[in-house]
């Protein structure tokens, strides 16, 4: 299991940031991803693997009208 925004989420071998965002429907263009507190730049989403037990934070910077 991993934690995404402090909620438990299943983990699988080979899970990367981009596939996690796709699976969770996190499609908003302006988000911040941190894994165990470390910022992950957008260009690294596909390459950055997520390990079992990781604490993933996906912050949507959206603020309404």
């Amino acid at each position, binding site marked *: 299991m991993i934690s995404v*925004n*402090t*909620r438990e989420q299943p983990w699988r071998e080979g899970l990367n940031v981009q596939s996690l965002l796709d699976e969770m*429907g*996190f*499609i*908003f*263009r*302006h988000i*911040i991803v941190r894994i165990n507190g470390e*910022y992950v730049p957008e260009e690294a989403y596909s390459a950055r693997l997520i390990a079992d037990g990781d604490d993933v*934070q*996906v*912050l*949507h*910077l*959206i*603020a*309404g*009208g």
Partner: protein
Amino acid sequence: MIDYTKRTSYLGDLEKQRSAHKLVFEGSFNPGLPERGYNNRTLYINLSTRTIKEKPVTEQMKEIFIGGRGFGLWYLWNAVKPTTKWNDPENEIIISPGPLGGNTQYPGSGKSLVVSLSPLTDIPIDSNVGGHFGPLMKFSGFDALEIQGKAESDVVIFIDGQKGIIRVEEAPLESVDSHIAADIFTHMYAADEFDRRNISVIASGKGADHALMGCLNFSWYDIRRGVARLKQAGRGGIGTVFRDKKVKAVVVRGPTVKGDMNRPADIDRVRNTGIRLHREIHDNDDKQCHMRTQGTAHLVEVMSDYDLLPVCNFQYGSHEDVKNIASYTWGERFTQGIPDGCWLGCSMGCSKGADGHIVKTGPYKGHSVTVDGPEYETAAGLGSNCGIFDRDWILEGNFYCDTYGIDTISFGTSCSFVMECWQRGILNAERTGGIELTWGNGAAQMELLHQMARNEGFGAIVGQGVARMKKLFAEKGWGDPKLLADIGMEAKGLEYSQYLSKESLAQQGGYALTNKGPQHDEAWLIFMDMVNNQIPTFEDKAYALFYYPMFRTWFGLCGLCKLPWNDIVPADNYKTETPAKVPEHVQNYVDIFGAVTGKIIDKDELIRQSERVYNFQRVFNLRMGSGLRKHDKAPYRSLGPVTAEEYLSRQERYDKQLRELQGLDPEAMSLDEKIAATRAWREKQFELLTDAVYKRRGWTNDGVPKPEHLKEIGMDLPMLQEVVEKHL
């Protein structure tokens, strides 16, 4: 390719209309410019007593109320009694831009705040609006305009900031509809073509003559399009008050704007702070929110993707047809490549215009018009929430709402309510006079609007708003009153704005635990709460429902637009501990407040400034017979699923919550039992949230500001204590 300079002209009778004007009364003043953001005087006009006078702005007024919404509330408090109703002559409309309003160096500095007693809620309403009126009035010499009393027949109030003349003229011939009135009065009162840019018009429309949800349009002259563009002070029915006073228009003719007319204490600091934000907008907007090309309509499909778009009267949060009204379709429909800021110097320029709309219904059928918008709220309110996923119908509704002076948010939510009543058999053709209010019926929506403007038929009933319709339907025996209460999306009498709050407890409070009613400009916490899970505890949510309403209130005190705060952020904002606050921009506001007014504040004092006015408004509500816990209740649909269809649409989520949050076994429960258990739990959560929020705001458990809290924030004024003590 649409020619954005071409549209139907309404200027053919201008000379005849001008010659029909008769002077009712007039006054004079010495035009002047503000010093450090303030003129230190305001303008008072009484239409009943035919009085024009100047009032001084005291240091205490500036210290406590700052400007904008603060000045409006202060003047309104002094104008009305606890028994005053919205249509009593003593009710006022106060317009004030605030000390930072009129800056051209920092994006989003052209807002006016409008305050009045609301026809919908019977308590003070504040509504912010772009357009050039506030800054041009300020550069004519006034920090605020109070309009009190009622005229005997339709009048235009003309404030000539070039010559120092104020004239109140009978104006019998011009249309009250805003797209015409704004254009005619711009041409009528400008000395020449160049001078049109110095004119701004406030107008409303025929709809506001009768409906309680009337809005005000504030214009600015778009020199490239050659038309008066419109922005709306939409919420709470101030346009209805305006027309009840028989005001057809307020026109200001200011001096030609230059960059230093706010006469700030440190213009270099204002300029440098602004340059940094201009760069951010230039470099980042295309990667972030696309405000420059789509405006706030950029949110449409995002909300649907996250199950937050109101669909069919807030029953559902997404729809497969959202692609038809998605942001990119608006980007295609808006004219691109020409400046669209609703105030000078705003490089965000999100006031998009759809040129060449050929009107297909009503009195302007066949006319070619420029439609301002739609913004997100309008696209969702007139569109998805009514099951309408047709761009042309939304533009048609947007155009007519604006020109008739009708708030698109209240109308959208009222229309969606009656459409659901039709869906559930509460309404039928006999009761609606033959209008078939099926989901997606754009023509029916337009017929309601035209009837509203003519004050006839079922449309006139819809124009009274959701709260009064619920009461009326119940009285007539149309539908179960409990169901009507659950699905009628209003609180305090104001219709909900267009976000689904069911899955965000914090946003449920963000709507219901407000001073004026459920408008998202106090707090918009859905993503922080529901998606980001940044505020999991009651205390976290209570802090958010303290900080963000106070922070956003501050924009209304100063004459600023909220959008450049967090709809564009620095590229390195992610490095900060509190990216949702956008700390660099908070510092910008601290800096420009000091740079304009010369008063040095920090980010804590910024919040404290708002807290004073926010608590003043809460006590004002108490004074008017509202402002208690019982007035902060929410319709159940804003908290959870009312009907079986709603529950089933998210069954997996709701069943999971029964298991994980309540320890229940949904497999062993009937659907009715599951809906009831969900409701009981959610209503309890809302009460616990209310407890936490009141505590954090320094209020009693009944929602009354505690005397010691008022003292702590410097608001222990005897007039407030007298009101509060009655409720302790």
